[in-house]
């Protein structure tokens, strides 16, 4: 062990600019990999855009609940220095040796003293900053209740009586003499994730945004829906406070070059965003509201997003109109809004009344970030987004500077999270291989542990803290009723309502209460222990209590959320759940945790570009990699790709990568490798595989598993594919164009059909890659043969992000894009050595026939279900309905599998482009690194313990244990190695002598729940 202070010179810090979700993820990944981070954000709390959302697609979860643990996670990491209200004035120097000049604006509030009580704001609302900064109408007290740092900020300019303001603060935290602080930070690399702004439609008179209060942006609509928003989550029309009956969304505002000042790109996330808002709106009001989305192309190309679109259509009855309304008006004396639009098959002007119109505004970079970029010398594209590497989008034109999130290009949360992790990895790799950077805090930690209060001899003294979780709980049940009930229960010393229990202020309150009242057991009435147990366990530790003296009553997920129409029953059930938890916590005992050494080898399954990238990344960091490839050579699907849409040479790239992998001393490649068995636990897996021509069996010990098994090219038997020689997949077309330019020059007509075998009954999802493929090949054909007529028959063109520019270019070059619908698909017939394609042209309202020299089918990708099924059985991992691996959390943990130590990247996750796959590979590297940086795996305390005096040495546990852990020791009774126990409790439940207890789930604790439940029921 070596003191980290020696290796941590000032120059191995990483500066992360932007404290949004991406910045937080980057900082966390770096910190967990034992890298020091300075996280700066110019806002007064971190969290970024996501904290303003009500729910997120496609899970429709409440964001606050999912993000808040991350935020406090961020706050507690000792490797992260968080600087809020701080801007980057300048960054000079080169990779490995940057100097950043930072300026922190005065908050006029001493963060150490402020408790976030809100007295200042209620007395002087005008001079306390709170605005979400997006809105001319919607003030809210604090941006969101779990804010980090949990404090207000004073706008001194607006304050008339400074002295009165100072006095109003009970904590004495207001300091009007606060000064800006300038500081220089040395850092080795920089990650920019300042996010993007949203397009401001104020100047677009015809949309009425500037003067019609019921025309709002999608983010404003989100705020109105949000429980922490200005209306407390009530959806009302800003003009009159009444519930709207008809809401329309207009897509592509500020995107696809459609309006003045709009970006030329597609903003990527707005379609899903609008769908989500429409669904949530429908969920709230059911039949009582109509929702309509006006769109050009529905771009639901993400993982399972197409299913979301189908749900919106089929289950929620959201109405879709393919049209771009040209104006929103409010006729004199009326309250309704009048939308004027036309449909594509008629020229007839149509009008429809709505009472709210939502503008789906796109992303754009802000002035400030552009300025920052220019200071750093970053090259920007025409749309003022950074120019990035063709194969690695987080790499900028400036060495040592990485970008992630919406500043890189418009994108949704999962992709932001992926890039954030990827950027973290790239930035960390600057610092070289992970040396023995061992925590300097060892002693401190040990000292802290000693501080745990010994409560073993005390009578139980329970504190019950009940969250309202905003509207989530408080909206349905009266928290005070629950508190009153809890207060009467045996051993309960304190019962309190705690608002958002997981907010910093509540956490602090709870901690204080525990200490002041000398509580020795805690019950939280709130949300799921699955998400929040760790957070409250930490809290107990801070309060010097053993963290296992805790029970969480899940009164949100199990009561208020699922009994929304019956507050009475929800209340009674919440009481039950709380009482059960109190009964159980009384039986809780302090427990000690177990740990084991971490195996630092990595198994990468899949030797395509994704797998190789991850392998090289981690091998370069000094970890031993075993790379298992099913086929007989490396490279995967990329072996068939020639160029990317942007023109990068894939073959050269892959060839170089294969060479590096083969020659890397830390990578052992197995080809023709099949995984056959697997055992162990995160950090110490053993996997058996057969490889080579001889199917030689060997076992590998590893701590991490990365799944990069890829997907398959789809090849449905449609449109004469494999029957006519002129019918090709897009992949084959690409190869044909490259190999046979002379023949291509002879082509008169080329037809391409999109969504062949995708978005169908059998394969309901979008293959994501095909639209840009079609555009790429169309442009390539025109390069060779400018005279060719190219028809692309599509359902929705999904050229997201900057691909939109190529789509436009193709149109400009004369490629004819014609939409078809599934009820009138194109018909293909052989005609001599050509094919005849007949399609219905809705603009012309007639069938059109083209005799094509080449028909290219966009067949997309399908999951390699044979492989994923087998692997999911061996590794015990979930899959999506269509056979891709299913990650732990589709938004916030997109590359982590639910089983710790397993990660997924590339097309095994869902269809994606090579660049996106590489980004995921980099992200996985970062996520894996967070585990690999540890020397030990914490096994928790949930293990089985044997009471030797009761044990009859009957061997039941020895035989029942799924992992063969128990044995009869020399003393003649069963012994269970705490380091090996997986904590399933099977032995405990089968022991005939009742000599085994599973810690945290002891019999008396479970029975206490049963007893308490019926005590209430029967009483």
């Amino acid at each position, binding site marked *: 062990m070596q003191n980290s202070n020696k290796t941590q010179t000032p120059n191995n810090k990483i500066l992360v600019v932007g404290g949004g979700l991406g910045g937080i993820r980057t900082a966390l990944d770096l910190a967990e990999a034992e890298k020091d981070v300075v996280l700066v954000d110019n806002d007064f709390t971190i969290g970024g855009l996501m904290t303003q959302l009500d729910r997120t697609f496609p899970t429709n979860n409440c964001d606050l609940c999912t993000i808040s643990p991350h935020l406090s996670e961020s706050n507690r990491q000792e490797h992260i220095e968080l600087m809020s209200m701080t801007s980057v004035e300048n960054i000079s120097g080169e990779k490995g040796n940057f100097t950043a000049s930072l300026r922190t604006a005065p908050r006029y509030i001493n963060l150490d003293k402020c408790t976030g009580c809100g007295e200042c704001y209620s007395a002087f609302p005008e001079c306390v900053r709170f605005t979400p900064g997006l809105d001319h109408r919607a003030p809210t007290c604090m941006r969101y209740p779990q804010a980090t740092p949990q404090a207000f900020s004073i706008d001194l300019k607006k304050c008339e009586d400074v002295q009165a303001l100072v006095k109003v603060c009970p904590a004495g935290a207001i300091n009007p003499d606060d000064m800006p602080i300038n500081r220089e930070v040395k850092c080795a690399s920089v990650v920019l994730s300042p996010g993007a702004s949203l397009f401001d439609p104020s100047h677009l008179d015809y949309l009425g945004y500037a003067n019609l209060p019921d025309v709002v942006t999608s983010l404003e609509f989100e705020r109105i829906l949000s429980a922490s928003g200005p209306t407390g989550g009530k959806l009302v029309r800003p003009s009159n406070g009444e519930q709207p009956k008809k809401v329309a969304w207009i897509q592509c505002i500020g995107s696809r070059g459609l309006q003045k000042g709009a970006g030329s790109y597609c903003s990527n996330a707005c379609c899903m965003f609008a769908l989500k808002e429409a669904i949530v709106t429908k969920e709230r009001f059911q039949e009582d509201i109509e929702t309509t989305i006006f769109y050009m192309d529905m771009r639901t190309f993400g993982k399972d997003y197409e299913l979301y679109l189908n749900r919106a259509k089929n289950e929620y009855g959201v109405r879709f109109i393919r049209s771009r309304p040209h104006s929103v008006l409010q006729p004199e004396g009326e309250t309704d809004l009048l939308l004027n639009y036309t449909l594509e098959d008629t020229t007839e002007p149509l009008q429809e009344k709505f009472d709210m119109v939502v503008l789906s505004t796109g992303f754009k970079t802000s002035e400030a970030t552009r300025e920052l970029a220019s200071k750093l010398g970053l090259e920007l594209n025409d749309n003022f987004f950074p120019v990035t590497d063709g194969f690695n989008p987080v790499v900028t034109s400036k060495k040592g500077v990485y970008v992630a999130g919406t500043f890189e290009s418009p994108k949704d949360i999962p992709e932001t999270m992926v890039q954030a992790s990827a950027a973290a990895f790239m930035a960390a790799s600057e610092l070289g291989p992970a040396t023995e950077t061992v925590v300097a805090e060892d002693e401190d930690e040990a000292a802290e542990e000693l501080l745990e209060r010994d409560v073993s001899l005390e009578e139980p003294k329970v504190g019950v803290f009940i969250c309202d979780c905003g509207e989530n709980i408080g909206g349905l049940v009266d928290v005070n009723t629950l508190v009153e009930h809890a207060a009467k229960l045996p051993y309960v010393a304190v019962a309190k309502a705690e608002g958002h229990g997981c907010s910093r202020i509540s956490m602090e309150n709870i901690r204080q209460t525990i200490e002041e009242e000398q509580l020795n057991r805690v019950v939280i009435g709130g949300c799921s222990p699955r998400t929040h147990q760790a957070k409250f366990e930490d809290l107990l530790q801070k309060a010097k209590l053993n963290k296992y003296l805790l029970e969480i009553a899940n009164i949100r997920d199990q009561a208020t959320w699922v009994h929304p129409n019956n507050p009475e029953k929800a209340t009674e059930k919440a009481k039950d759940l709380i009482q059960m938890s109190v009964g159980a916590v009384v039986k809780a005992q302090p427990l000690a945790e177990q740990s084991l050494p971490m195996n630092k080898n990595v198994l990468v399954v899949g030797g395509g570009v994704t797998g190789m990238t991850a392998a090289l990344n981690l091998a370069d960091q000094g970890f031993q990699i075993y790379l298992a490839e099913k086929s007989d050579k490396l490279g995967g699907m990329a072996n068939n790709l020639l160029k990317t849409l942007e023109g990068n040479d894939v073959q050269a790239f892959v060839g170089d990568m294969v060479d590096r992998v083969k020659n890397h001393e830390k990578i052992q490649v197995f080809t023709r490798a099949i995984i056959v068995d697997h055992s162990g636990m995160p950090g110490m897996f053993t996997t058996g595989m057969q490889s080579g021509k001889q199917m030689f069996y060997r076992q590998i010990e590893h701590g991490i598993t990365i799944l990069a098994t890829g997907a398959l090219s789809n090849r449905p038997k449609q449109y004469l594919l494999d029957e006519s020689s002129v019918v090709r997949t897009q992949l084959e077309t690409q190869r044909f164009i490259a190999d046979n330019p002379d023949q291509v020059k002879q082509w008169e007509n080329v037809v391409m059909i999109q969504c062949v075998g995708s978005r169908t009954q059998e394969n309901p999802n979008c293959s994501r890659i095909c639209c840009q493929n079609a555009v790429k090949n169309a442009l390539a054909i025109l390069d060779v043969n400018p005279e060719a007529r190219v028809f692309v028959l599509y359902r929705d063109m999904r050229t997201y992000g900057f691909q939109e520019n190529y789509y436009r270019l193709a149109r400009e070059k004369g490629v004819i894009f014609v939409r078809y619908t599934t009820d009138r698909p194109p018909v293909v017939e052989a005609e001599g050595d050509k094919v005849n394609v007949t399609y219905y042209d809705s603009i012309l309202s007639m069938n059109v026939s083209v005799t094509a020299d080449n028909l290219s089918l966009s067949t997309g990708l399908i999951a390699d279900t044979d492989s994923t099924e087998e692997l999911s059985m061996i590794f015990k991992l979930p899959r999506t309905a269509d056979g891709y691996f299913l990650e732990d959390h589709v938004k916030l943990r997109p590359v982590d599998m639910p089983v710790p130590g397993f990660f997924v990247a590339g097309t095994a996750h869902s269809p994606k482009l090579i660049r996106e796959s590489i980004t995921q590979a980099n992200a996985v590297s970062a996520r894996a690194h967070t585990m690999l940086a540890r020397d030990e795996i914490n096994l928790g305390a949930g293990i089985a313990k044997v009471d030797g005096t009761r044990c009859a040495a009957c061997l*039941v546990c020895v035989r029942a244990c799924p992992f063969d852990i128990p044995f009869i020791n020399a003393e003649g009774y069963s012994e269970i190695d705490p380091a090996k126990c997986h904590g399933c409790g099977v032995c405990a439940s089968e022991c*005939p*002598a*009742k000599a085994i207890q599973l810690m945290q789930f002891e019999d008396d604790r479970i029975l206490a729940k049963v007893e308490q439940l019926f005590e209430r029921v029967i009483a």
Partner: protein
Amino acid sequence: MITAERKPLEELIEYIKPYKRILLLGCNECVTVCAAGGRKEVGLLASGLQMAMLKNGKNIEIQQHTLERQCDPEYVEELVQMIDGADAVMSMACGCGVQQVAMRYKDKPVFPAVNTKFMGASERQGVWAERCQGCGNCLLGATGGICPIARCAKQLMNGPCGGSVTGHCEISEDVDCAWQLIWDRLKALGQTERYLEIMPAKDWRPAGGSGPRKIIREDLAE
């Protein structure tokens, strides 16, 4: 090990019907190992009796206690403290344990909760099979270590009857033919000639033929 199996609940209810306070005893030896009368089974039975009696319109009190070994008087002595609180005792120990309690607490009705079955070995988790009948004159030495007394349905001592088919006993597919096993063992040991020795008619006196048996170790006995 002695094996046992819980009696049907119905039978047990009949036993305890006249009583209100029951002391339900387990034993942490054989019956624990064969999952018939350990702490856990005591808990299950207590709960089951309670409910069944309740259904019969009667609320009974059941006190649960598991002795280390119910066939030893010292352990049985532990019950002194709780016996007065009970109108009747029900024991999940083997017959030895039940009798030990009955002998010690002469004025308390004692009922068996299990049927004591046999001396068995465990074949695998949850499966016990008879291996010994305690005949008092072990002949395993002559039969390749497999007992024809305990394991042959007809206790044949000189070879298999005509009902032995593919290793099974004629009484059931699930019962191995002991003589097939013996023969296989003798072959494996290279002692097939031993089979030809005629085993004379057995002296059943050590097996209980001359009344209840007793072992006395003079050096230990007080």
